[in-house]
């Protein structure tokens, strides 16, 4: 140990939320509300059960609730919770107002939330509040006028995250939420479930002091693998002890890789020794991505700091879709802040900010001169670079062409084909979405 040593950071807010309570007696008079998915143009864009899981298992610590109107207001103005800790997004439990009236839900009530028809969680209603969904959507993601340091184009219905907020009912229940009946993960997901308390224990067991997080919503190609390997060289007196791959599992867009292939594809990287399994762990967080670029990167920082990571890699166009955000706005945020969003310094340097360290990375390409995968900042042959974008690789796969091993591991391709056979399609299509959103990632027992 010396002054250069970096240790596991405390959870965001100082303490992990534990919102899983066993032996809660559910009184018959509690109003019961079945959780229903939010749908846009026939496609499920959000299921709030995933947010309840992430709150209750501590991924979003110190947030232990659905936000009330004053908390949402503070988040939108300053990107801080009421207790001052940085937090990027409003977390809102919107409910159809007719249901609220029908069940006579009032402030002060305990509401039983049901999932797949069975008891799942309790919500202690502190406030029933109204809002303008479109206004909240615009304020959440920013506009070119008000946030020119990051937003390049006005958000619209083509943006899945903006649509999540814009499609809300306009009436929300705010208050503390906790799980009373723990769901069981389906087999394909269970081994990747490392809520913060468990991941911290796992890191300690493995002797990992420094851990770098890799955000993913894709199966890994060689660009991702090189990113992980090179970024891991950032540590303290030695490279990071471990790489945590954390997949965001949730609602999908048509054409995405299926969650099953994403998780098992990353697992194949260590299973076949391309990254030593002693230094690599694949995990997941339940969340319907908001594709909020720099703002989403703050949430990623919170989740992975809570999981015990010391570093987080951020690439070009982090957690974004389309050309709404400047592709380098996430890296700009972590270097100097984004003042228009109330973030006047890097989240790492702000009071009640994050303790996870950013590692901003550029691009990897194949360089025919070097004859290897090269890093764009160190290879001087950019004019000869051969890039392998995700869409290029998806095109190869769809045509049934096995990508060459120099850009894609054959074992990862085999995983894609395995799930292709299962779902009769290599990517997310309407049929997959119907199955996924009906079945969800979990089962829940009657109680």
């Amino acid at each position: 140990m010396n002054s250069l040593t970096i240790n596991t950071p405390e959870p965001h807010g100082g303490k992990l939320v534990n919102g899983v309570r066993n032996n809660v007696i559910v009184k018959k008079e509690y109003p019961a509300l079945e959780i229903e998915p939010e749908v846009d143009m026939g496609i499920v864009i959000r299921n709030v059960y995933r947010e309840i899981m992430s709150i209750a298992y501590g991924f979003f610590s110190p947030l232990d609730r659905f936000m009330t109107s004053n908390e949402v207001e503070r988040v939108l103005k300053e990107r801080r919770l009421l207790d001052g800790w940085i937090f990027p997004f409003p977390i809102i439990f919107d409910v159809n107002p007719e249901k609220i009236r029908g069940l006579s839900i009032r402030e002060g009530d305990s509401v039983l939330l049901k999932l797949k028809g069975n008891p799942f969680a309790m919500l202690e209603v502190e406030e029933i509040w109204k809002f303008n969904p479109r206004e909240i959507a615009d304020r959440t993601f920013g506009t070119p006028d008000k946030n020119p340091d990051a937003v390049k184009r006005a958000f619209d219905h083509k943006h899945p995250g903006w649509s999540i907020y814009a499609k809300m009912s306009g009436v929300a229940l705010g208050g503390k939420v906790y799980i009373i009946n723990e769901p069981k993960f389906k087999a394909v997901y269970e081994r990747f479930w490392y809520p913060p308390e468990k991941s911290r224990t796992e890191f300690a067991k493995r002797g990992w002091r420094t851990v770098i997080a890799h955000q993913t919503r894709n199966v890994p190609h060689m660009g991702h693998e090189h990113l992980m390997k090179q970024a891991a060289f950032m540590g303290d007196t030695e490279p990071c002890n471990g790489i945590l791959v954390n997949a965001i599992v949730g609602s999908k867009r048509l054409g995405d890789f299926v969650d099953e292939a994403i998780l098992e594809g990353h697992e194949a990287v260590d299973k076949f020794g391309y990254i030593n399994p002693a230094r690599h762990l694949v995990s997941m967080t339940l969340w319907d991505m908001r594709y909020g670029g720099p703002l989403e990167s703050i949430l990623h920082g919170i989740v992975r700091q809570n999981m015990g990571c010391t570093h987080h890699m951020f690439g070009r166009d982090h957690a974004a879709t389309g050309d709404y955000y400047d592709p380098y706005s996430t890296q700009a945020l972590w270097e100097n802040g984004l003042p228009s969003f109330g973030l006047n310094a890097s989240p790492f340097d702000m009071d009640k900010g994050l303790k996870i360290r950013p590692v901003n990375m550029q691009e990897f390409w194949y360089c025919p001169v070097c004859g290897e995968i090269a890093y764009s900042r160190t290879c001087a042959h950019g004019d000869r670079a051969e890039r392998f974008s995700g869409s290029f690789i998806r095109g190869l796969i769809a045509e049934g062409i096995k990508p060459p091993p120099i850009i894609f591991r054959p074992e990862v391709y085999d995983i894609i084909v395995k799930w292709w056979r299962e779902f009769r399609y290599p990517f997310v299509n309407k049929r997959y979405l119907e199955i996924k959103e009906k079945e969800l990632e979990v089962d829940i027992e009657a109680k």
Partner: protein
Amino acid sequence: MEYIISIVLDEDRFNRIRGSGLEGKVKGLFGGTLKVIDLTVTEEQAKKILDAFPKSRIDARKHIEETPVSFRRELFNLLVTKGDDALNEILSDKKLGELKSLSLEEDDYLTPPS
């Protein structure tokens, strides 16, 4: 503005173009591990493709990506039989109409590799 569509050649496709005069257009990528033929697409042709297939898009390299599999397969077939006229041929109203219908079926099922 001009764009590119890359037609990827697996072993079978590469064998089909042997001796056709197209061999000279083959480019090796990633150390020669992947063979492609790049076709230049005009602004007008690109618009027609993007209009016909809403999922297709132009990436940062100015390549037209995410076109339907049936479109890419037919483009290769036409390249072999019609050579430089392949793009004009595939973008005829009749052919494009057929491929649009096929692409809708593709959204539900794609045959996995054996």
